[in-house]
């Protein structure tokens, strides 16, 4: 088991290296640079800026320097948000995004599987159709429609909750963004749970349980344990995406997460900021895939650690 984790950990390093290399060079292929403004700067100032940030060096040298700095945990200074290092920016925003993301994933898992199980047990009933309808709506209606709608209903009309702001993570402030983030995931998880539960309930070993007089509760328990496996495979990468922030939700609710830095950084050619977010997202994706693999191995004895 320890060996399994260690090996997965080691094999993540080359993947990370490839991701960093690709994004580094792709960023540089994009036309324009961090100091190209609407009003072009004087050539002399531009030259000084480029020298100050080391952008006058050959690309390969810049790349080598970036890698070396990365190894010591230094993500470099932001080119656009002056006087801040990328690490500072990300460390400030990450707790916000992670709080929202983890709560949304938890909500999706609990509500989604519950709805899916209920629907599978009452297949083709009113409850089942309601869950399927909700699942379809949840996936198709985009969050930039749901978010303002919630703000209008719960924020303005009912005045139950604030329409935005972080407010140091007060519960009242995070309810709406978490729900908006979770809704599409609840829908997907509910639909997946329903489908795999229906399959599991028809399986031979559930028939065996029924032939031995085991009750509904035991049957659901056995079926769910098998049905949860594909859902975990889905939730792993999804969790990584949610924990690293959502541009739309953070912008609409005015939250200081890291999701928006992706877009801002890319638009401003803030090389180091984009690279920083890429590294963080990549680490999260690799980490969650590893967690899923470990959980899989724990839940399914047929999966070997070797």
């Amino acid at each position, binding site marked *: 088991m320890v*060996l399994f984790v260690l*090996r997965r950990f080691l094999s993540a390093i080359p993947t990370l290296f490839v991701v960093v290399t690709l994004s580094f060079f792709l960023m540089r292929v994009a036309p324009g640079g961090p100091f190209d403004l609407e009003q072009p700067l004087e050539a002399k100032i531009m030259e000084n800026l480029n020298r100050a940030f080391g952008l006058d060096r050959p690309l390969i040298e810049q790349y080598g320097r970036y890698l070396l700095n990365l190894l010591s945990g230094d993500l470099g200074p932001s080119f656009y948000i002056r006087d801040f290092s990328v690490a500072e920016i990300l460390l400030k925003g990450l707790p916000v995004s992670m709080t929202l993301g983890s709560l949304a994933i938890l909500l999706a898992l609990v509500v989604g599987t519950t709805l899916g199980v209920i629907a599978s047990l009452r*297949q083709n009933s009113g409850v089942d159709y309601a869950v399927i309808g909700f699942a379809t709506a949840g996936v198709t209606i985009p969050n930039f429609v749901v978010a303002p709608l919630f703000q209008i209903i719960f924020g303005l009309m009912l005045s139950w909750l604030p329409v935005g702001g972080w407010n140091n993570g007060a519960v009242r402030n995070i309810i709406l963004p978490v729900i908006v983030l979770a809704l599409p995931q609840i829908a997907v998880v509910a639909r997946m749970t329903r489908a795999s539960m229906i399959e599991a309930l028809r*399986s*031979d*070993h559930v*028939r*065996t*349980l*029924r*032939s*031995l*007089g*085991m*009750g*509904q509760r*035991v049957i659901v328990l*056995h079926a769910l*344990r*098998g049905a949860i496996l594909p859902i975990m495979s889905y939730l792993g990468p999804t969790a990584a995406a949610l924990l690293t922030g959502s541009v739309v939700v953070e912008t609409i609710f005015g939250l200081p997460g890291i999701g928006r830095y992706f877009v801002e950084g890319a638009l401003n050619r803030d090389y180091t900021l984009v690279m920083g977010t890429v590294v963080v997202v990549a680490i999260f994706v690799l980490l969650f895939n590893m967690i899923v693999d470990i959980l899989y191995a724990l*839940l*399914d*004895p*047929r999966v070997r650690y*070797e």
Partner: protein
Amino acid sequence: MDRAQFHIRDLHVRFRTQAGELHAVKGVSLSVARGETLAIVGESGSGKSQTMLAALGLIASNGVVTGSATLSGQELIGASERVLNTIRGATVTMIFQEPMTSLDPLFTIGQQIIAVIRRHRKLSQSEARAEAVALLERVRIPDAANRLAAYPHEMSGGQRQRVMIAMALANRPDVLVADEPTTALDVTIQSEILALLAELQRDMGMAIVFITHDLGVVRRIANRVAVMRYGEIVESGPVRQVFDAPRHAYTRALLEAEPGGTKAAVAADAPVLLAAEQVRVHYAIRSGFFGRAKRVIRAVDGVSLTLRRGETLGVVGESGSGKSTLGRAIVKLAPASGMIRFEDRALVPLSRAEMRPLRRSLQMVFQDPYGSLSPRMTVGEIITEGLLVHEPALSAAARDRRAAEALEEVQLDAALRNRFPHEFSGGQRQRIAIARSMILKPQLVILDEPTSALDRSIQKAIVDLLRDLQKRHDLAYLFISHDLAVVRAMADKILVMKDGLVVEQGPRDELIRHPREDYTQRLLAAATQTGFLAG
């Protein structure tokens, strides 16, 4: 007093399907008493399993059951799930055909057995555990106490079926329904499981309802038999009486469906078509930290054989013996070393491109007629696909003509060539698979268990067809099978394999009458007992 325990009276099962109502079981009545074994025999789709599933309330949710099923006076049809759950697993239980999937793969067998015991009896965890160990010992699982912690995938098919039996008998039921419990197992294991069931019945005195398609099994274990077809019982009575003097035409047809006759020998001077010496297929399994440590699986380990034109070599063995790998190795679908000569060409050193023109002479037919035909192609397209490779110059019209001829040759209506595989039965699909290889006019056909997935009566028809094609085209067959009755009907020579090695090889009659090796004797004994080989 009526000593019958379990009565079914006028049972009907109807399924609501999109194509309308399907009347699967039409008024079945039967009964079975303590200590007695009733066999229900029929081919697939006869309603034999649905009858018993319906009686125990285990039918699919779109099924409607009417009629009566009583167990010691308690009516089961229409009883609530709550009531049924106190009866199922306690007084009546069921074991199934699929030992691989009938146990939950995510729980240890100990957890599963203990759950069944504690569901119906007030025992503590440790008492139930002791009981579970005793049960596993009773069904002869070696090292029972330690095996409680094993997961189903760590056990063989035969052992899993033993665990199923242990679970079914955990609470000493009055009636055990066994639905084809040995069909998926090798003959020697099958024989052991049947012996175990008979022994447990003597000890515990339960009634057994044994559902099977296999008349040999019926002969061996049942007191009475009911023959089912199209959802009805066509004949029933004591086994001897029904078998010796069948009254219904269908029973007679079933009894005659066991493949009979033997193949005429080939001329001694027939040219050798295929010669193989010391064929080996070894697979290296990598494991260890960075995949350094290697373990070698010897799937085929030094097999030699010769096959003349017009001759059939039967390759017999149990699952895992390497018989299918040997077949694939000969046509270079598995990496082989050693010498394989087809006509005058050595096959082992040939590249894929060099091998391609030879493939039309070396065809293969597989076991699973459902998996081996593409569901998205018409039968005509499936059959003629090989012609696109081997006779690319052929016009579309000429190909279509060849497809029609090939279908007629396997006795299918040529007009069916625009249909898709799912519109055909298993036997028809196997004919399509045979037509696909026959259209290329091969010299050698490797038949890998071509009849194993089929009912007996259809098996017989396929055996007749294959023999007929062989005579007409002077074909050589390598016939791979675990079924000695079919091999005896097909082969000139028999090769027995075990663990990748040849156990024994010789002319058909000599090998069956005077097996030299212990393993061959055991295989034949098991086959004779379970009725694969009559007499």
